[in-house]
């Protein structure tokens, strides 16, 4: 019994790490623009698809493929911001939601046309695929990669925010845009950077995940939604919250799927979301926002 439990925890941590990265992406964009990017999941998908293109189609080794994928998705994030988000920054909330949904549909379609509808198989990052920890528990080495890569980039992001000027400018921008502008911080550049960073994070998540689960053009939607759930659970706008929320969501989801029913996996995630929204909308670590009259 405990072996199965352990297996679920491993799966939970793996997916949790992915959700955490995606949630971080949401948070980063939200802090600078107040926008929720419903197309975030598509960047995960693009990460997986591009990884396939570089690693399998062009037969490049893993490391350069990964780096190239990350950079490419960042770039796509920048294009997205320029083309679609910039003109819409002042639109009404519901319009912005629909626009980002429109972007998501657009990217999915484009991916379907470019890469086809079949699931794409990417080779795992290391030669040994599995490690048998005991008779019952098998560790898929890719899980370790995913966990390691996501932790690595979380640390990098943290350093970015704490140590670099741009990172600190981010924080300034979100707490008080006017003051930030006064001291010379270019809001437009911040928005652009936030999209690049968040897209990059999502792309990295996708590239690391897809050898485990295969990439397909419509995998993005659910990942985006769950990443958003994680962000809210942890507290929207709080980096640590996003990470915490991600892991929590991943583990609860896997345990629920394992012990209750796998079909209801997604329902469990959304139920947790709704519970948080109704009882504690500021999430685990967020602060209560005050609404000014």
């Amino acid at each position, binding site marked *: 019994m405990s072996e199965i439990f352990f297996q679920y925890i491993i799966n939970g941590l793996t997916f949790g790490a992915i959700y955490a990265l995606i949630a971080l992406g949401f948070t980063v964009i939200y802090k600078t623009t107040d926008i929720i990017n419903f197309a975030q999941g598509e960047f995960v998908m693009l990460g997986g698809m591009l990884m396939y293109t570089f690693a399998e189609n062009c037969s490049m080794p893993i490391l350069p493929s990964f780096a190239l994928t990350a950079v490419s998705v960042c770039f796509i994030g920048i294009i997205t911001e320029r083309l679609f988000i910039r003109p819409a920054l002042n639109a009404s909330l519901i319009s912005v939601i629909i626009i980002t949904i429109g972007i998501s549909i657009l990217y999915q379609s484009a991916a379907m046309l470019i890469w086809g509808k079949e699931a794409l198989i990417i080779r795992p990052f290391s030669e040994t695929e599995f490690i048998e920890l005991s008779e019952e528990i098998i560790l*898929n080495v890719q899980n370790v990669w995913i966990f390691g890569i996501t932790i690595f980039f979380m640390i990098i992001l943290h350093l970015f925010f704490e140590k670099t000027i741009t990172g600190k400018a981010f924080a300034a921008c979100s707490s008080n845009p006017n003051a930030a502008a006064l001291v010379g911080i270019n809001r437009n550049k911040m928005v652009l950077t936030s999209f690049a960073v968040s897209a990059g994070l999502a792309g990295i998540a996708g590239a690391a995940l897809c050898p485990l689960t295969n990439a397909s053009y419509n995998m993005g939607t*659910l990942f985006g939604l769950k990443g958003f759930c994680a962000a809210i659970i942890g507290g929207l706008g709080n980096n640590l919250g996003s990470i915490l929320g991600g892991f929590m969501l991943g583990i609860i989801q896997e345990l629920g799927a394992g012990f209750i029913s796998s079909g209801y996996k997604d329902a469990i995630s959304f139920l947790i979301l709704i519970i948080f929204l109704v009882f504690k909308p500021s999430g685990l670590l967020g602060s209560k926002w005050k609404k000014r009259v």
Partner: protein
Amino acid sequence: MKKILLSLLIICVILTFPNKKLYSDENTIKIGAIFAYTGGASYLGEPERKTAQMLEEKINKQGGINGKKIEILIKDTAGNPQKALNAIKELVQKDGVAAIVGPTTSGVSLAIKNEMNNMQTPLISCAAAEDIVVPIENSKWIFKTPQSDKMAVEKIFKLMKEMKISKIGLITADQGFGLGGAKQAEKYAAQYGIEIVAAEKYSPADAEVNTQLTKIKSKKPQAILCWDTDQGAAKVAKGIKARGIKVPVFMSHGIANEGFIKAAGKSGDGVILPCGRLVIAEQLPKNHPQKAMLVEFKKDYFSKYKEEVNTFAGHAYDAIMILKEALTIAKSTDKSKLRDAIEQVKKFNGTAGAFNFSADDHNGLDNTSFCFVKLEKGKWKFYKD
């Protein structure tokens, strides 16, 4: 004032517009075909579409049917029931086809069944679920060409009984073909002395099935039965290898094609399944009644499309050729007569086996249409009759 006059004018025009009946071309036989050649099931539907186009050319070259050329109008369902409903309405009401071939998947077939009956147009489905043509009372206009899941399940259970397997783990997709298989397995297991110790389902959208396989492994079955087509089954095969599960793995006739071999890779080796004789046609004895037709179909398909044929292309082949036979018997495109004629098709050699339709049996196959095949080193090998 002006507005009212304008409206009255429009109304008069509309009411006095002459009844125009679009002329249907009497010299061409129109057949509809709906396949899922985009979307999740495209690896099934695309070969079906190619087969339809290939046969259209071939039949017309040989003089058509009843002296008339045929036109096969192909529409995409993308595996989506709503799209399929729209497609059949377009084919029957707008294009005026005599019958429809397809669709690719069981789920879509069941979804359009009522509408096809309603429109009183024959449908020859290329999907396998038993429920498509059973009960016969609500399947008057519906036929199908693949062997049914019930037959396949029973054949597997019989083999398992011979192999002294009495405890199995069941893992299937949670919809369409997979669900149909699960239903049949649960229904007939006891009859063969088999106990299903664990029954798991997964959604096609699921990235992997580790959770389900972990549960199954913990119940220590003597064999695993998986019911799904290529992609899903490949996920399961990979997962089984990863979990280190060593018991024999049985799968359905839905994986008998290159797609599964490619997707599963090495983890597919050792899988046993019942299927029609198409994929091992060359390994058949020389005087086998189906051999000549199968080998010819394989050759034609390969020379035109430069890829190996698969069982799904075979189902489309059967559907169209049976329709051709029925049209020849009926000597007309009247839909009622055509429907009756299909029921009169007997001793017909298709890729799935020898078909014998009747008023009660709209599938026309029995379990001699199957043989057992084992996947060895990425190639299909004949295992047992």
